[in-house]
């Protein structure tokens, strides 16, 4: 090979392994994705804009992104709290709770969807008491936010948990010995350390929620302009044989998820570099806290 594509190695199998990887990746992922963009390019810019910015599509973006943001924010707050409780405290059933945090990853989304709908339906376990105080949960935007909170639950917990586990307790002891209150120690020592991981988890929960379909369609009620999420709009257009419409909306979603990959990667890099630095930070932290307190 003329240029040094690959460094010398004594191990065999590079050509076969890489060749197969690239071939399979192309057949399953790259070519179908490229075909979608090719199909979209058969639309003129005006046609594309007419579909992608139609009132019904815009209403669906607003609901999808809004409810995803609410779900991810709830998970940011409660995810940090759950991670903290699971790492720092011991209580009966802790290991069970710890393993079940991953349930939203393992439970098929359709099952989650019908279960949540049954709970929050007007005659459901929680839907009835909520309805009696005038809150409509299922078949409303609130229902969408509930489903998207469920689906994003593990991300923040699983992202923050290892950082808390690796965190040196000496940092907190030093802060406390210098007179910081427990809250000051938490907000100035613990929080900055876990922040990148928490934000990475938040971004992943948000990205996952935006594309989610199965757990939402049952509970949302699917009213155009009111409770119709963007993935459902794609399916509706497909059912009406409106391939151009479905493709245009799909391209909007694809571009969005590709754009979101960048901040997620950056946050993950920031988080792992922050973890490595944690040890070096000890003297510095004591300094700032001493000055502050």
């Amino acid at each position: 090979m003329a240029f040094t594509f690959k460094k010398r190695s004594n191990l065999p199998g590079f050509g076969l392994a890489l060749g197969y990887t690239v071939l399979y990746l192309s057949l399953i992922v790259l070519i179908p994705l490229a075909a979608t963009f090719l199909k979209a390019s058969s639309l003129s810019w005006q046609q594309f804009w007419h579909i992608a910015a139609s009132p019904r599509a815009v209403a669906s973006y607003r609901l999808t992104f809004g409810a995803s943001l609410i779900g991810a924010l709830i998970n940011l707050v409660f995810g940090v709290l759950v991670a903290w409780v699971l790492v720092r405290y011991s209580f009966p059933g802790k290991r069970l709770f710890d393993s079940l945090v991953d349930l939203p990853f393992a439970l098929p989304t359709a099952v989650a969807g019908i279960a949540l709908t049954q709970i929050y339906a007007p005659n459901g376990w929680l839907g009835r008491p909520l309805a009696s105080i005038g809150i409509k949960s299922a078949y409303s935007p609130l229902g969408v936010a509930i489903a998207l909170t469920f689906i994003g639950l593990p991300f923040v917990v699983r992202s923050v948990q290892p950082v808390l586990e690796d965190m040196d307790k000496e940092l907190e002891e030093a802060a406390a010995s210098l007179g910081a209150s427990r809250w000051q120690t938490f907000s100035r020592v613990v929080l900055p350390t876990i922040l990148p991981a928490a934000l990475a988890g938040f971004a992943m929960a948000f990205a996952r929620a935006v594309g989610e379909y199965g757990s939402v369609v049952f509970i949302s009620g699917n009213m155009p302009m009111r409770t119709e999420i963007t993935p459902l709009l794609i399916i509706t257009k497909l059912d009406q044989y409106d391939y151009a419409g479905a493709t245009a909306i799909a391209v909007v979603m694809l571009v969005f998820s590709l754009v979101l990959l960048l901040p997620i990667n950056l946050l993950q890099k920031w988080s792992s570099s922050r973890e490595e630095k944690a040890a070096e930070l000890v003297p510095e932290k004591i300094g700032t806290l001493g000055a502050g307190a």
Partner: protein
Amino acid sequence: MQRVATAATGESAAVRWILIGVAVFFLGLFIFLPLAIVFSEAFAKGLGVYWASLRTPDALSAIGLTLLAAGIAVPLNLVFGVAAAWAIGKFEFAGKSLLITLIDLPFSVSPVVSGLIYVLLFGLQGLLGPWLARHDLQVIFAVPGIVLATIFVTFPFVARELIPLLQAQGQEEEEAAIALGASGWQTFFRVSLPNIKWGLLYGVILCNARAMGEFGAVSVVSGHIRGRTNTMPLHVEILYNEYQFAAAFAVASLLALLALATLVAKTVVEWRARRQLAESALWNGEAV
């Protein structure tokens, strides 16, 4: 001294129990309640209805199709995952981080879009649709489309578990095996594979759970033909929309059991992997 340090870096009992209470309430609301309602609704009309709903021809064919799709998708993604991890974990080459990003791509695509891309390629209106129709081949609204969509959504699972493992292990053990005259395949099966077996199993478990539970992508390509192109999650949807709640939740309870089994297997594998890591660290320490 120990007590002073604990008091300074711990919370008062009241704060501790309030935080535990809030966490337990949150997990109870979003994890335990949905699980509880699946089983309570599944058995709401008694064991007889439960068994009967699982043994209808449509339910059985949905179970069969789900097993078939996972049975094809998981081994294919396993072979791919091992190949990708070998190339990425053991060699340095240009474009490596781009390749890793591309492998992860299916995770960031909405399930509905994952199904749609195959409709746009293989459907009647699609790029290859006319050619397939001329040759009397059907991919969309048929089993091949379901298998393809399942492969796509579970594509990265095994690869992303194995890549960091193979990377972390370095090449010394394999190079030693090669130097001692082992063939490439022998080196892989006798040296590399035993080192990554728990990670591999972990990836397969997650891949399988998602393959059997996938809904959005499969829903787009399936066409919902009862007894022919319905997987278990799609069968659940049909029953639920027909207000056959007991039957819908009966089939759903099988999927929930699969999810619980996945979590148990995952916990066990994580525990074994940690022990293997600790043992190998100990062994290396002694060897030095």
